[in-house]
């Protein structure tokens, strides 16, 4: 039994003009202690997909379809009250932009104590002791629990967010671009910390990022999203060394390379489609350098290239290996 199983998750945003198809038919699996990277351009539906798991969406979002199973327990039909218990105890989130996710006028420690006390019936003293312990685990001096967020550096605040996320021993942690605003050294430290915690606690980690190098360093598997759909997913090494989908190839090519000749990485021409009116057929066909006639009209089916490596492209129909 997988720790997390998501089948055909579909979330739309309702606007006056119609529905924004922010994420469609997302299927994901996650084992204990496994890390899955969710990569894609901005506005490709990564965050929507992840937040749909815990239903922390803006008011105009509608989860159209999909089944979410945690440890074999179906939570797709859970009400707000049940979800409040599931969040943090089962799935927690490391928020995007730790700079703003801490209340500036309250002590850092208090904010973690808050998370603990909502979910566990423990005394103040016990909560404070646990908070100090958590600080120790994320490598911050436990004496600093009494300080205010402005007294912390960016990396430390991100550590605090991690401490908050793991406070109630969740089975799954969603990291929503946890290292985006940090410099590379601090980024490496934070990623190492996440890696250690994941191994120690056997947590499942869903890492949302647009930084392929982060995925390459930390994730066992990767899912590439484009225009609200997963276009390719598989073991990280496999996807990076032998990308099957033209979008994955373009994404990898667009990533700047520190070594070798000095030239700008090749970007993908055009812009991501407006998801209010997504293009027919394959959603990538307008920007795809290898698009054929059929790509415009027929939606491609999922092709299983190898066990656990799947992609969604017409060009692969000929090279099915299964």
């Amino acid at each position, binding site marked *: 039994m997988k720790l997390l199983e998501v089948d055909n998750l579909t979330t739309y945003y309702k606007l006056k003009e119609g529905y924004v198809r922010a994420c469609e038919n997302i299927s994901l699996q996650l084992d204990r202690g496994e890390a899955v990277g969710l990569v894609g351009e901005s506005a490709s539906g990564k965050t929507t997909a992840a937040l749909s798991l815990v239903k922390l969406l803006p008011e105009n979002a509608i989860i159209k379809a999909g089944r979410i199973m945690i440890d074999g327990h179906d939570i797709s039909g859970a009400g707000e009250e049940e979800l409040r218990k599931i969040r943090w105890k089962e799935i*927690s989130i490391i928020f995007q932009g730790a700079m*703003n*996710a*801490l209340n500036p*006028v309250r002590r850092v420690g208090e904010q973690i104590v808050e998370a603990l*006390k909502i979910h566990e019936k423990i005394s103040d003293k016990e909560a404070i002791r646990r908070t100090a312990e958590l600080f120790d685990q994320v490598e911050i001096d436990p004496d600093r629990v009494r300080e205010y967020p402005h007294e912390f550096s960016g990396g430390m605040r991100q550590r605090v967010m991690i401490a908050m996320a793991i406070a109630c021993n969740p089975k799954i942690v969603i990291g929503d671009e946890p290292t985006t605003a940090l410099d590379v050294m601090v980024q490496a430290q934070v990623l190492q910390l996440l890696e250690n915690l994941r191994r120690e606690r056997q947590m499942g980690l869903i890492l949302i990022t647009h930084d392929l190098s982060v995925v390459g360093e930390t994730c066992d598997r990767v899912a590439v999203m484009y225009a609200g759909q997963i276009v390719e997913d598989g073991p990280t090494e496999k996807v990076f060394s032998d990308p099957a989908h033209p979008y994955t190839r373009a994404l990898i090519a667009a990533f700047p390379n520190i070594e070798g000749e000095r030239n700008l990485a090749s970007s993908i021409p055009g812009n991501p489609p407006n998801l209010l009116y997504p293009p027919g057929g394959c959603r990538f066909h307008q920007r795809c350098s290898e698009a054929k006639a059929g790509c415009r009209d027929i939606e491609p089916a999922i092709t299983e290239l190898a066990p656990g490596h799947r992609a969604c492209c017409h060009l692969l129909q000929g090279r099915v290996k299964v």
Partner: protein
Amino acid sequence: MNSALVKQETVTLWKKNFSSFWSIFRENTMGLIGLIILAIFALMAILGPYLVDISILTVDGVTQVMHPPTAGYVLGTDDLGKDILASVIIGSRVSLLVGLAATVISMVIGTLVGIVSGFYGRAVDTILMRITDVFLVIPWLPLMLVMAALLGPSLGNIIFVIGITSWAGTARIIRSQTLSIKERPYVERARAIGSGDGHIMLHHILPNVFPLIFANTVLVAAVAILSETTLSFLGMGDPTQVTWGMMLHFAFSMGAVSFGAWWWLLPPGICVVLVVLGFTFIGYALDEVLNPKLRRRDQ
């Protein structure tokens, strides 16, 4: 919650915060003048019964009536022979008490309405804000007069009437700030960790609107004290209490103006003006201290 964590270092932190606040505040001449004025009146109110013999205020028929200021009566006497200086000192107690108590009521209602309205939005916001609008657009003086007349003249009623008619502006200000704060990422985070609405309002929004409440309190206090004087002057006050407003009321109705008894009219009037001025000065100073955008560079 988590009181132990807070207590340990709160005292030192408060000291730190206060000293940094004080170092900016003390540069502000206006604020200092306001503070000194209020400190004098506060001392006067607290020490009042020790400063003057209350028995001077009882009418025994022996004292001199409508006496101009002399050595014996520094500020003269009124139509019943009561000493004006003593009346002013004793009157400060009730005037300040009414003003402050009414301010507390006004701030509690204003903050509550503002936060709830801004936080929940939609129907709740519409209903609460329309009620606020009613209190904002109705001329407050007639409203106060009608309410005071209906409820009858007693100290508690005066406090209630002033409190209930002066919260609308505060509610508006707090609401607009709440609207901005509730969209901040830490509120979303608080919701994600499972905090309920009450918890978020109390622990995340209230601390963030607190400077606003603080600065507003001072200005509302000035209005409340002025209102008390106005109500009493117009005869809606409690006739058994000595307040500055009641003094003015009796001075006016007993013909102090036509008699030329300036010593009866001026002292309570000047006291009211000074106290209101003190609060207003501090209000402006606080605005400058708490709002970094208004601070001058060299501070």
